[in-house]
């Protein structure tokens, strides 16, 4: 079981790499070095701020785009090209396929984020000449970004398991935006009444909540991230991603692969 999941995951990773996904790193490297040189010349105090804000935002956006655009094709492309037939006629359970795909893309994103993190720290070193203690919080912010990727990947996979790539992209992107405002959505829900309140609150809890995972600004301001926040964010992201994966598995298990 685990063996097959690992094989499917590594094949997914290989596919992403051969599809030149990691080329985005070049764009990222250009962005970071350009930014570092530019800020290095204009200001003294805010250079770290700008580098961290820009770097982490770019890591998050690049990764999100990759997660959505690869994630939405993970299942539907295999169905469309019928590559799935030769996989599922082997001793592979459908849920193993989904889980393997998830880990493959998640692995791709982690590797990608790792290289980008090196870029961020490189730029940071360039502008401030030395690392500070507070820079370790940047690592926490990166960790949270990776947790965010896990959720987005699982959601893209969920949509991919029943919908066309284009619609999946729309759904996944919409949820990404809504998820970034989920806290405000809960605020709205608290201001309504009766049935609306129930529905709105339910929806607000069901959509992914990314607000807590975004600590970019506070890290840029050298603020510490509490241990509880790290713990709860980890638990929440893992649980939410598992939930979306379960949904994907349930849909895929019952699907006729025409």
């Amino acid at each position, binding site marked *: 079981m685990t063996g097959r999941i690992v094989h499917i995951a590594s094949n997914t990773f290989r596919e992403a790499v051969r599809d030149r996904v990691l080329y985005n790193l070049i764009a990222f490297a250009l962005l970071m070095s350009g930014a570092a040189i530019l800020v290095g010349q204009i200001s003294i105090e805010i250079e770290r701020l700008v580098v961290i804000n820009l770097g982490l935002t770019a890591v998050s956006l690049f990764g999100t785009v990759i997660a959505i655009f690869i994630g939405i094709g993970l299942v539907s492309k295999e169905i469309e090209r019928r590559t799935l037939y030769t996989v599922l006629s082997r001793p592979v359970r*459908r849920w193993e396929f989904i889980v393997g795909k998830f880990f493959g893309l998640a692995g791709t994103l982690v590797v990608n984020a790792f290289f980008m993190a090196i870029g961020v720290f490189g730029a940071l070193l360039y502008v401030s000449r030395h690392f500070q203690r507070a820079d370790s919080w940047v690592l926490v912010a990166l960790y949270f970004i990776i947790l965010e990727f896990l959720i987005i990947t699982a959601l893209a996979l969920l949509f991919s398991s029943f919908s066309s790539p284009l619609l999946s992209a729309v759904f996944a992107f919409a949820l990404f935006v809504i998820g970034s405002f989920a806290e405000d959505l809960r605020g709205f829900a608290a201001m309504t009444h009766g049935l609306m309140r129930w529905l709105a609150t339910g929806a607000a809890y069901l959509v992914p909540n990314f607000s807590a995972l975004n600590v970019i600004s*506070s890290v840029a301001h050298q603020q510490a991230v509490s241990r509880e*926040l790290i713990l709860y964010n980890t638990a*929440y992201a893992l*649980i939410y991603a598992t939930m979306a994966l379960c949904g994907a*598995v349930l849909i895929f298990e019952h699907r006729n692969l025409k």
Partner: protein
Amino acid sequence: MRPSPRITITFVLLLVLCMIGSVVFLRRLDRVRTGATLEEVLYISSPQVLKRMSLGYDGLLADIYWTRAVQYFGGKLHNRERRFDLLAPLLEITTTLDPHLLVAYEYGANFMSPKPPDGAGMPKRAIELEEFGIRNNPDQWRLYYNEGFIYYMDLKDYAGAAEAFARGSQVPNAHPYLKMLAGQMAEHAGDVQMARAIWSTTYQTTQDKSVRDNAAAHLRAIKVDEDVTALEALVARYREQTGLLPLSFSDLERAGMLRGIPVDPLGNPYRLMFDGRVEVFNPDDLPFIEKGTPPGYVAPPPKLLSSD
């Protein structure tokens, strides 16, 4: 040849567990980071920058900031905190993003102006907010009214209040009360009568249930304060006449000073204490009262938003 029921059941169970788990941890996260979002939000504290960053979706963003302002204020009020540092910036951002969001001015005044713990105690900022509203919506008489209200209630600046009411009365379709308030302001400034007139105006002219409830609570509080003052005066007179404190309101009744047992605006009888003070039946039901409470009484947070 159906999908395996064992797999289906396993994953449905896991799904349900995860749903519960995600809600649990989301609630924990909320507890860990109360206010954190807002401080974070205000890293961009310039409304102009935000407006540009909203890419034209400034109406939606204004609604979001308005929600945040309400949540922030409600949270602080609930926790009986006395500092509301972010309230003014949040409201400024909200109204800059959407200068026609009248509800923000209406509630904004209610949130910012009163002294803690009922509000943020920033009447000057509240006046600025109303002035900004008036510049952008000169035809809305309620904005002038709100401004006059703040001058009267919290700043005790009766001239300022009179001017605001007078300006408001010039607006087409302005409520006729405004003219009356402007006129009476000079004569009765500082009277309980004036306060009552203003709260009655609020009560009668608003469409909003929670604003109306708030006004009604204030009107009840004025009535209670008057009643308690009057009743305690009667007790003092009784003591002068008889040399004794009355044991109950019946004693006052027998002395011909009262007709029946007096009741508060909610219909509950007032209570005569052994030391001659008068207390209301349940002070928690009558917010904003200044008299008729037990010694050392601390009022619960006022309910400004009916949803709370």
